[in-house]
């Protein structure tokens, strides 16, 4: 959890020192912190938000927020987790503000099929689809589904943290994740069908 995606090698003592310098207004320390975390936060945003342009904007805004909120950071806790929390909250706020129609649908536990999945289909899908295709399919998911998968499987957040970020009950996180997986499979299957029909037509 603490060792989230590549933020550069810096031990806790060094990091705390840098943070205290930033708090004291040292611009070099701020530059150092930014250099360490900007790539990771940008990559996170790139996965959480649908377009590159949005990810770039969001990264800048997240660091502006980070600078403002750094005074509230409890240095006894892992900074990387805190930073991801700021980033995920920002991205989710951004997505919610945009209020896509997709998000107006209410995820419903009752609607979720609890059937026994066909493992062979699942395996075939994994074998046929590449990472690039999965990433592209991810971008087609509703915001909440995409965010749930990114928070859990990219940012390595716990169920508690996912629930807190997305504003849902902890017990609902599993449902969200499973539903997101279903939607992802659907999109990937659709891509597969499209590819096959395109191949057949040519």
């Amino acid at each position: 959890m603490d060792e989230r995606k590549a933020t550069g090698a810096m031990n806790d003592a060094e990091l705390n020192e840098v943070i205290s310098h930033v708090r004291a207004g040292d611009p070099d320390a701020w530059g150092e912190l930014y250099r360490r975390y900007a790539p990771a936060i940008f990559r996170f945003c790139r996965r959480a938000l649908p377009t590159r342009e949005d990810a770039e904007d969001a990264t800048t805004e997240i660091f502006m927020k980070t600078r403002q909120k750094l005074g509230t950071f409890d240095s006894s806790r892992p900074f990387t987790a805190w930073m991801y929390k700021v980033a995920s909250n920002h991205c989710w706020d951004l997505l919610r503000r945009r209020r896509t129609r997709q998000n107006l649908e209410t995820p419903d536990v009752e609607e979720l099929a609890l059937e026994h999945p066909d493992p062979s289909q699942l395996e075939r899908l994994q074998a046929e689809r590449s990472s690039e295709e999965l990433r592209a399919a991810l971008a087609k998911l509703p915001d909440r589904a995409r965010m749930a998968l990114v928070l859990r499987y990219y940012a390595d957040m716990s169920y508690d943290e996912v629930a807190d970020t997305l504003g849902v009950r902890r017990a609902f996180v599993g449902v969200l994740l499973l539903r997101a997986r279903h939607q992802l499979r659907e999109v990937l299957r659709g891509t597969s069908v499209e590819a096959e029909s395109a191949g057949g037509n040519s």
Partner: protein
Amino acid sequence: MSHLDEMTGLLYLEGELDVNREREVSTHRSVCAPCRRMLQALERESIWLRESLAAQEEAIPQRLARVPGRSTTAPWAWIAALGMGAGGAYTLWSGLVEPWLAQASEAGFTQGNLLTMLLFSGAFWKGWGRMQTLTQFLSAATLGVFLLWLAGRRWRRFSVAGAVLTAGLGFSMLTLPSSASAAEVVHGDPNYTLPAGDEVKTDLIVAAQHARIDGDVDGDLIVWSRSITVNGRVKGDILALGQELRVNGQVDGNVRAFAQSFTLNGSVVKNVMTWAHEFDMDEKARVGGTMTLGSANVQLDGHLNGDLLAFVEDLDINGSLSHDATIRAQRLRFGPNATVAGHTQYRGGRQPEKAPDAQLGSPIEILAGHRPMPSYASPRLYWHQILAWGASFLFGVVLLLVAPAFFADTENASKRFGPAIGLGVLFLFAIPVAAVLACFTIVGLGVGITTLLSYIVALYSAQVFIGAWLGEKLMGPGIGTGAIIGRLAIGLAILRLLRLIPFAGHLISLLVVIWGLGALVLAIERRMRPQWAPAV
């Protein structure tokens, strides 16, 4: 135990089941091959998700890769910049706005403040009459901006709704007529006539196919009609929009007319301002104040007591002018009865023609057809540039502090050069046309005028966004308001320098306006967009 469902399987793999349930699932897994296979597939899916999400590490964009900007501006630089900005604002006011107001006041817009003047001397918005001074207006505007800012901060999620609500409240406040603004509104069926001997005690607003005013109107006369004839007396102003306008009676106030042809046979105590293709002032006609014309063909045979300001194609003067004349025309002719007591200044295509009997107070001052090149040797030029830079910088800083998110959105939108330029060109021409068209309807007049005012602000603010973009391009992205302000200052300074380039400077100015306006439109569109499509 029956087969595991997928939800249980996922929670088991994620370590989210309680101890007892987890033990049950483990036991079942060891004895049930299909469930074991399902759990393996789910687990592989988790790994696949993690690996795919971690893979394809996209290179960080250049604008984010560089070390963030740090505000290194010394306090004295801030003081100097803000001082310069204040100086620029003061210079703009004292050098441009105030003389303009003075001229306008001379031309009869004597209601006391800029907006009242723009809104035709209160002919429409009586509410402005309450705002007797510019200070009052500025206070109201500041309050509006503060409310918008507050809405943006406190109720960020509802910032658009807040802005609309505030704007709506403000607009309602401005457009609500005061109790003193009672007016008689009539719609012709299809024509309207106010018979001789009848008197309207209030303002009279008429919309008809043909309108004829033979009686008296105590207030203003506002009329939309194909043909308009005023034979009676109007004690207030006339504001007329029509194809043909004839004023044969007496007008105690001003006449402002938009018409295909306008014939003035009567007398106007105050001023005349008209945009008419043909304007004919009969020899019996009298105007006590000034006359401002924007027309194709003009014949002035009557008496004008004030100054004449004319932007016309063809101008024949055969009457008397008691003061100065400033004329821009393709052709100018003084007939034998022409008398101009003051100074005549002329800029035009051909040499003016003057009948031998025409009497002019001074020789005609003929100005060159083109504006002279700026004098690069004059320190005054550079001083003015510095002040203008200061004014635009101050404007930009206020914009940034009041609406930082919108500022950032617009600056980002300016990076989409193609769409911004395309939309900029479109809106540069479309907004004024739409606003003017809106002004032709009684309901849309307020909207039209508000749009025009916003349009002017948008044109001025265009340089701010492009300046901010340019500053960021040169210095890299900055984090924090201070860094953005520093980049803005540099970007605006460079734009100001570019404008000094002979000939190309004008083109650069135009490009900046178009580009910035387009970016503004894109940013507004982005904020209003109800939904967005995820990238594939």
